[in-house]
């Protein structure tokens, strides 16, 4: 991407500025929590359970405690604090019973890492292994309960629905129309099952937190590599029974999050260790193995889809059952399960729909938020089903989709009306299909001919949608203060985790205030004592909500400036405009005053001063959302839909199963490009991460539900050699009328539906429908060898968790 292909109609919004914090990052100056050292800081290590489910018979900490340099040793007996964003089902340290292989059984804080490591080795734990729950089917039989106290778990009532005496953390539903009738009236009913395994986020900076718990008061100071400082504050206060005001959270540079750092993870443990060590700051850092084995993942999921369709291609009814293998604790995973009920059928206009989404406990490492928040998983089911339907009907898959996609006038499955301001999935699909050169499905003759060469080409595409999955009262805010030189410093509550939030917000402010972007300084380190509130940095919501908050703050600042300038220039504010760092009179621009002259108040020639230091605030609360009806899932949960589509062109070596991704075309209706470089970065990153899920990634558990690939040796992510030859990005701009300059978020979307597009391309190439991810070389070859035309969940041996 050498030349700027995108031309913006705005002066500053839409320009491809360099990332604001790039220089710190290329010089090694950027300090991450991983780098931080505090005076008197101790280092912690954890002992993880070797068993998926076991009784902890005894823990002898005496030798560890006696080791010189050890300042605290904790195990489950030492604390009854419960943590959980939505359901309080997790102890900080396992007590009595471990629930997954990787569960924290004990922790040590010591003067240095090596001593902490030694102390861990000196702990004597006696376990009694118990029969674990392996997978969703076993979990649903409920012969063994992962949480025997499930009936008593504290949770958000009316939002999550744990089922009595079961392993179902939550059973969420939505229902629209008359399903039975619609199925009956359909020419064809097609049922299919799809599945995909858990995968890891793999941020390059592993989870790390430093906590200093004041021994003389309730005050807790936290430094964390995290996405949601205000959520940490709130949950810490809740779990520890103190005031939010007693909790202070600092977020330095963050080395990647992808949703894995969206909630609260190591902070409670670090807090307990600090308290036990007399208030010394304690750093708890996950090794890479712990990152895979102890910290949470994206959930494995099985989707069963039944579609009622007519021979002319009209979809009448869709019924989906999603079973999420969410592991040992509900964490954020339970919200992923809930979100599927209003967003889990893809961007299609379906009048009769029913979704059952169960977040299920098993004895595996638990799941949390992950880029896409369940949408990659549901779209794997949906977009493969759509492709299979088009095959059955003999209709071109592009035409079939165009017949059924959402468009203005249609309603989403939660009953929300789609308008022009919602954006256009059809334009996205049309754009990618055109760019990839789709000329229709391969014929069997073409396939056979190519097969003889050993390499077969295939093209496939898939659509996607996502809106932020968040509470109806989600809010973002911004504070702007002007310095004496007329430049501006800005504080937001959102975290720049690499997505470029600070740069995008600065661009919007630069546009509003008509200042060069260099004059907008966004505070890079979040401090909850000073920065204004933002719910979480997740959900691709920061551009939209943070952007709106920034605009409001800028406009308030301009109003204040004009009020003072009007006095200084002896006119009315309504006759003033602003440009290039000056406020000026619209009729006679020579009557003007620079921002700098009013930044700290305006002083008349005789010394009298008016106004004062310029500052402004802006807040944006999600506009017009409602909770969902617990039975029907109807309501208004979605603030802003971003639609998109991917098309891929692949080549498969039929003997080895290697897939070469030649070209990926991705289109998103972003409403308004804020910064093309940043969006292109999100697209490349998301596509490659999506290809990882498509071809390469997946947790593997053995029959004892022990994780078999807890390191980079066997848990691989794409490298530079695995990137596609070409990624083409297309930006559709149908503005969202209540968005900042019409913009929508697009942070997660590039990953969604990438596996679906690849799966569809694999069908085009091989004539085989794969129902299970990943489409590894082995899966491809064994699939071809089987002679079957559909490789189902039941056909796949020793795949993670869902056998």
């Amino acid at each position: 991407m050498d030349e700027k292909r995108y031309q913006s109609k705005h002066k500053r919004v839409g320009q491809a500025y360099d990332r604001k914090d790039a220089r710190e990052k290329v010089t090694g100056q950027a300090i991450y929590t991983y780098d931080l050292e505090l005076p008197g800081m101790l280092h912690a290590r954890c002992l993880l359970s070797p068993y998926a489910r076991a009784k902890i018979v005894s823990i002898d900490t005496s030798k560890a405690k006696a080791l010189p340099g050890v300042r605290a040793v904790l195990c489950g007996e030492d604390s009854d604090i419960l943590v959980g964003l939505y359901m309080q089902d997790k102890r900080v340290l396992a007590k009595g019973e471990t629930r997954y292989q990787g569960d924290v059984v004990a922790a040590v804080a010591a003067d240095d890492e090596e001593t902490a490591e030694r102390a861990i080795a000196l702990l004597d734990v006696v376990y009694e292994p118990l029969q674990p729950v392996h997978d969703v089917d076993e979990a649903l039989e409920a012969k063994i309960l992962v949480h025997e106290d499930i009936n008593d778990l504290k949770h958000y009532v009316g939002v999550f629905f744990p089922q009595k005496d079961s392993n179902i953390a939550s059973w969420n539903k939505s229902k629209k129309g008359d399903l039975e009738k619609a199925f009956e009236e359909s020419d064809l009913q097609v049922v299919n099952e799809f599945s995909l395994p858990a995968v890891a986020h793999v941020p390059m900076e592993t989870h790390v937190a430093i906590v200093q718990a004041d021994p003389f008061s309730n005050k807790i100071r936290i430094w964390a590599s995290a996405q949601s400082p205000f959520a940490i504050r709130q949950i810490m206060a809740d779990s520890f029974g103190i005031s939010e005001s007693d909790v202070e959270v600092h977020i330095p540079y963050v080395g990647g999050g992808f949703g894995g750092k969206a909630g609260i993870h190591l902070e409670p443990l670090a807090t307990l260790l600090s308290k036990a060590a007399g208030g010394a700051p304690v750093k708890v850092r996950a090794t890479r193995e712990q990152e895979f084995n102890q910290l949470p993942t994206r959930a494995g999921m099985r989707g069963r889809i039944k579609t009622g369709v007519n021979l002319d291609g009209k979809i009448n009814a869709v019924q989906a059952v999603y079973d999420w293998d969410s592991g040992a604790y509900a964490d954020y995973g339970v919200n992923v399960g809930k979100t599927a009920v209003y967003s889990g059928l893809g961007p299609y206009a379906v009048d009769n729909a029913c979704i059952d989404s169960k977040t299920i406990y098993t004895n595996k490492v638990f799941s949390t938020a992950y880029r896409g928040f369940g949408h990659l998983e549901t779209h794997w089911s949906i977009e493969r089903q759509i492709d299979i339907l088009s095959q059955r009907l003999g209709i071109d898959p592009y035409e079939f989709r165009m017949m059924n996609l959402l468009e203005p006038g249609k309603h989403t499955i939660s009953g929300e009306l789609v308008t022009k301001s919602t954006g256009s999935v059809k334009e996205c699909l049309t754009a990618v299909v055109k760019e990839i050169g789709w000329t229709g499905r391969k014929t069997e003759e073409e396939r056979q001919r190519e097969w003889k060469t050993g390499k077969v080409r295939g093209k496939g595409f898939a659509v996607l949608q996502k809106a932020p999955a968040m509470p109806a009262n989600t809010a973002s805010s911004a504070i702007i203060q002007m310095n004496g030189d007329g430049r501006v410093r800005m504080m937001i509550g959102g975290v720049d985790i690499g997505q470029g939030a600070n740069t995008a917000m600065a661009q919007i402010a630069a546009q509003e205030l008509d200042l060069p972007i260099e004059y907008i300084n966004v505070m890079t380190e979040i401090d909850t004592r000073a920065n204004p509130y933002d719910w979480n940095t997740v959900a691709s919501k920061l551009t939209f909500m943070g952007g709106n908050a920034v605009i409001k703050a800028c406009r308030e600042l301009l109003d204040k400036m004009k009020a003072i300038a009007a006095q200084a220039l002896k006119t009315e504010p309504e006759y003033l405009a602003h440009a290039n760092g000056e406020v000026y009179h619209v009729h006679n621009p020579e009557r003007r005053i620079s921002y700098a002259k009013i930044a700290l108040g305006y002083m008349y020639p005789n010394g009298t001063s008016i106004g004062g230091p310029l500052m402004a605030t802006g807040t944006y609360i999600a506009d017009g959302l409602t909770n969902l009806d617990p039975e029907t899932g109807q309501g208004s949960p979605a603030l802003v839909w971003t639609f998109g589509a991917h098309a891929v062109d692949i080549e498969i070596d039929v003997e080895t199963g290697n897939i070469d991704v030649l070209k990926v075309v991705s289109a998103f209706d972003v409403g308004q490009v804020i910064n093309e470089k940043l969006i292109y970065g999100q697209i490349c990153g998301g596509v490659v991460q999506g290809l990882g899920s498509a071809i390469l990634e997946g947790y593997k558990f053995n029959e004892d539900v022990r994780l078999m690939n807890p390191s980079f040796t066997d848990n691989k992510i794409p490298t530079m050699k695995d990137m596609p030859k070409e990624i083409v990005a297309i930006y559709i701009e149908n503005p969202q009328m209540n968005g900042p300059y019409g913009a929508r978020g697009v942070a997660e979307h590039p990953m969604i539906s990438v596996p679906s597009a690849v799966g569809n391309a694999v069908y085009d190439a091989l004539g085989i429908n794969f129902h299970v991810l990943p489409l590894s070389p082995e899966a491809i070859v064994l699939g071809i060898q089987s002679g079957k035309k559909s490789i189902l969940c039941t056909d796949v041996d020793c795949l993670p968790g869902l056998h």
Partner: protein
Amino acid sequence: MDKDCSMYTEHVESGKRKVTLSMTVNGRPVVRDVDPNMTLLHFLRDNLKLFGTKEACGEGECGACTIIMNGKAVTSCIILAVEAEGAQITTVEGLAKDGKLSILQEEFISQDALQCGFCTPGFLMSTRALLDSNPNPTDEEIMEALSGNLCRCTGYIPIMNAVKRTAERERKELGS
């Protein structure tokens, strides 16, 4: 998960005999006493306070800890500090000279070859080592030199663009 550590229920008292180590880091001579079991990565960070080089796996698999040692790109997390006796080491802090960013760093910024930035120092050093020995690399040579560096954010394409632009500019502006 670590294998059962019961063999260490005895506190190992073999005692560490420190080794005096001298090397050149970013052009500066350095002399320190180190424990033999300290890795080069920890030496750079904990002793020399050069925090730019990061650990992201500790097993040589991800490349985040890449530095240049005697002209070669190596993963410092699996090298003992004592093995670097007499070595010439360059870390990310050694790329910019006299307050001016190198062409390589400028192009990483301009091509947006970074997002969270945690893998960036490793990529910069792998690229530096590549271009020092091969000023006109092919795409395959670039991928070969850099595929030992993992990135989860960028999808690599902007990094590839930055490396190619750097090579081009260095050939033109530095006549390499």
